[in-house]
């Protein structure tokens, strides 16, 4: 096999993410039909598959420089043809954020769901406006868009925690045995640390590469942790004695 291709895919994060996807696929296949059709299970699976897809695609762009250069040129970036930021901007900071917001929205009570709908709508509009106006081009770092996305995710997680301490449906349960609780906690930590990591990365790599790499590795660990929690969510119906049933707001 081509050694360059092997090298591009041999990063521990890429290998870990691919292994997690295999686990996720196995658990998802084992789910009963009605669970597979339930958004509680297919949305985490979609996020897992999408994340692993774009991470692998990112690795491929590092291997195929000509492809990366062509896409950058198409987007109007001839200055930094080695960047593949356009991929991570679209996948992680825009589509990824919307998918996580939808996941958070699923766990919220109906009143808060309305806020989440508006938040998602506002986020989409802002992303389009910031990119079309040229404030944050698609091929460069997009700190404003990521900051907005990370803050919306923090607000969404906050709404979940407010529901957790006020709603009767949650007060009757042990949060430490709810997958939604661990999802919210991991998503909140991952997006906050990813945000710090992304805005300081270029600077740190120039000034203190060791610290930059450490911060980047921390982000990778958090991302793997989030993917692992998504797998736990998918697998939770197969281990009913380990987790409590999630509260439902549909009946109340």
């Amino acid at each position: 096999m081509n050694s360059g291709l092997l090298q591009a895919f041999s990063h521990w994060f890429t290998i870990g993410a691919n292994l997690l996807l295999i686990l996720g696929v196995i658990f998802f296949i084992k789910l009963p039909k009605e669970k597979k059709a339930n958004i509680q299970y297919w949305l985490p699976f979609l996020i897992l598959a999408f994340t692993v897809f774009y991470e692998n695609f990112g690795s491929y762009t590092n291997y195929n420089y000509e492809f990366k250069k062509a896409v950058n040129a198409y987007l109007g970036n001839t200055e930094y043809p080695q960047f593949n930021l356009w991929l991570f901007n679209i996948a992680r900071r825009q589509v990824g954020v919307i998918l996580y917001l939808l996941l958070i929205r699923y766990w919220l009570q109906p009143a808060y769901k309305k806020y989440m709908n508006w938040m998602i709508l506002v986020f989409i509009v802002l992303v389009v406006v910031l990119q079309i106006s040229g404030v944050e081009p698609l091929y460069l770092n997009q700190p404003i868009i990521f900051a907005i996305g990370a803050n919306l995710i923090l607000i969404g997680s906050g709404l979940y925690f407010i529901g957790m301490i006020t709603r009767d449906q949650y007060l009757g349960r042990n949060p430490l045995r709810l997958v939604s609780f661990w999802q919210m906690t991991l998503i909140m930590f991952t997006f906050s640390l990813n945000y710090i990591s992304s805005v300081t990365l270029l600077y740190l790599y120039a000034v203190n590469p060791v610290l930059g790499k450490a911060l980047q590795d921390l982000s990778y660990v958090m991302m793997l942790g989030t993917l692992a929690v998504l797998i736990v969510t998918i697998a939770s119906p197969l281990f009913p004695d380990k987790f409590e049933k999630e509260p439902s707001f549909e009946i109340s």
Partner: protein
Amino acid sequence: MNPFEDQIYVIIFSTLFLGGLMSTFVVAMVFIHRQRQAQNRQKLDFIKSEHEKTLLNIENEIQHETLSHVGRELHDNIGQLLSLAKLNFGSIKPEKHAAGRELLSQIIQEVRSLSKSLNLDWVDEISLEDFISQELEKVKSTGFCETSINFETEFSNLKKDEKLVLIRVIQEILNNAIKHASPNHIRISANQLEGAQHIVIQDDGIGFDINQNSNGSGMFNLAKRMETIGGKFDIQSKPGNGTLIKLTLSS
């Protein structure tokens, strides 16, 4: 220390601070959840004990009424029948003996029906509609006022204790109407709307000011009783305009 080092320390400090802040937030949320969970459990225990107390009171009231009824029946009905039977059996005429035997059969029937009313099994056996019909028939038979009933829903899903509470609340409302309202007509209807069952008790009596304390405390007790079975009690009344009471039970 050079400015680069300063900035690096700021980044490290910011990262640690943010991580610590979020950890504290999550731990605090779990802690608050635990506290509220304990409070919620206490509240539920209190509601449960209130429910049990209400049920006990209702059972006592029904037993007291039943004993009064049994006493009255023994004295006014069975006692009279036994005296008549004694007279018949004391006669030398054979036809009187036959009449005495008929009276004895009647007495046996009366005693059987009385013994049935001594426990609360009748609550299971009778439907709510039949019970209300009987109560209204009693009111009508005294010549006090006219009554009518219109049931568009069945209350077959009620548990025994829920039915008992509902029966007592309706009895109390009817007693209040008879004692205080002087109505010409009492109407009871039941229907199902938007996933809830409603019983409406309406009279065309003198009505009252629902803000007056003297009437309010009785109504408060009825509302509390309805709450113990997860129901609602609503009242509308004005002096001279009759009274409308709505009992709501979520299906």
